[in-house]
């Protein structure tokens, strides 16, 4: 099954409430995906630093001297803000790749969830309410965010298998469904030099979009192309630094509901996920068409 929620704010006044609204939506989707949960949140961009969200199962050990160690390795200041098993590293924008290499060299068990100017990703195994509590998702603010509750099919119930997946700066993707040509596509994308960390089918979907965009496609064009090249069932919700997109495969058996008001665009696997949103009664609510790309940007 899996549950997806997404919220793209048009009204800046709602930004401090983004985490709270998304948390409520995420918990409502628990019975579609009780084994893991995750959220990608697009917060403030301070214009100077890039953010690397990292995770470790042994955070006390791995994060203790990480700032000093990475700073020394890349020859530039680094900041760290820990949040349970995750932390957000602030590094100079031109040092992101160096920082990635330094972390891989210095801390073998640290996973990099995302990098970019605005994106932060938090995901763990467990009930959505416990995951939300752990990271205090409800206190987060931002311009848009995407959440996922997972019922695993294509790979193990692990942190690596949880969604969202990020394979490019400020990009993320969540998925309800299953892809059937992911092994072949993973080999192809790895040959193209795209970074894929897990055995999960969805990560290949994310990597495919990243590859298309590196080749010059817009996100909309990349999503259009995915309809041709990805085989299987999917409802995808994707995020970029300033955008939010939805696409369903041509069979469209995985559920999806969109709602739009002058304050926000919201996505839910079911309408239930949207009932707590402001003035939902007067929103335009509809089911996205199969094989049709929907996209909004700030």
């Amino acid at each position, binding site marked *: 099954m899996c549950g997806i929620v997404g919220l793209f704010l048009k009204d800046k006044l709602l930004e401090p409430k983004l985490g709270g609204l998304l948390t409520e939506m995420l918990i409502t989707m628990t019975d579609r995906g009780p084994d893991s949960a995750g959220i990608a949140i697009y917060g403030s961009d301070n214009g100077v630093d890039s953010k690397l969200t990292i995770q470790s199962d042994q955070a006390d050990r791995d994060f203790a001297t990480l700032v000093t160690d990475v700073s020394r390795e890349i020859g530039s200041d680094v900041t760290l803000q820990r949040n349970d098993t995750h932390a957000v590293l602030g590094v100079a924008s031109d040092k992101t790749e160096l920082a990635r290499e330094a972390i891989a060299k210095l801390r073998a068990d640290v996973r990099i969830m995302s990098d970019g100017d605005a994106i932060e990703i938090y995901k763990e195994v467990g009930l959505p309410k416990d995951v939300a509590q752990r990271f205090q998702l409800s206190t987060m603010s931002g311009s848009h965010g995407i959440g996922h509750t997972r019922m695993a099919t294509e790979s193990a119930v692990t942190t690596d298998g949880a969604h969202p997946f990020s394979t490019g700066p400020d990009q993320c993707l969540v998925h309800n469904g299953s892809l059937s040509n992911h092994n072949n596509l993973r080999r192809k994308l790895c040959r193209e030099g795209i970074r894929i960390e897990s055995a999960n089918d969805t990560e290949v979907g994310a990597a495919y979009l990243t590859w298309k965009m590196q080749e010059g496609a817009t996100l909309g064009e990349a999503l259009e192309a995915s309809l041709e090249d990805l085989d299987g069932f999917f409802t995808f919700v994707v995020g970029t630094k300033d955008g939010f997109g939805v696409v369903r495969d041509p069979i469209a058996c995985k559920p999806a509901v969109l709602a739009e008001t002058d304050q926000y665009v919201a996505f839910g696997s079911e309408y239930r996920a949207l009932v707590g949103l402001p003035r939902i009664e007067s929103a335009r*609510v509809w089911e996205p068409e199969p094989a049709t790309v929907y996209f909004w940007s700030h």
Partner: protein
Amino acid sequence: MLTYDLEADGLRGLNSSLQRQTIDTNQNNWEVVNPKGSHAIAVGLNAEIEVTVRGSTGYYCGGMNQQALIHVEGSVGPGVAENMMSGVIIVDGDASQYAGATGHGGLLVVKGNASSRCGISMKGIDIVVHGNIGHMSAFMAQAGNLVVCGDAGEALGDSLYEARLFVRGSVKSLGADCIEKGIRPEHTALLQDLLERAESDAKPADFKRYGSARQLYNFDVDRNMTY
């Protein structure tokens, strides 16, 4: 009218209260408040009662209905009126996938649009959709009538048996073994009746009828690419 607050009192209580009503009940009118997209609202009813749902529902609203009139003042999720036997279900808004699937009887009215697989494997139900329907609607439909006042999506009536399909607008494509057929006087009368009962002002003369070409009933090796 009896009011049931779904948020306060829970789904099991609602369905057991409604299912307890029998032919001689005097509790004929119910309203359900705070549905908030919940699943399986008013399923398995078997009495001539009226249930009004004040808002939108999730999966399987009114499933297996017999005799009851269920009116949803909102939209419904997948599988509304699934396997309905008799009675009436009216949806003021839109319906998600497989509305009226496998329905044996009764009338389902969707005043907005219905999405994919509307009336899949219908077995005698009548379905009237005021708006459009999505792809693969009436797939393997066996009996009953599907009336669409708007347009139909791809592969309408694929592998159709004896259900009658009436569409006023365009049909994106017909499925395997589904063909256009003429409207005879008995079809006009049938449409007139269904449109009236569904509170649609559409005119029977504006519809086209589609049905089975009956070429796929038995396996034919020369048609093996069509199955």
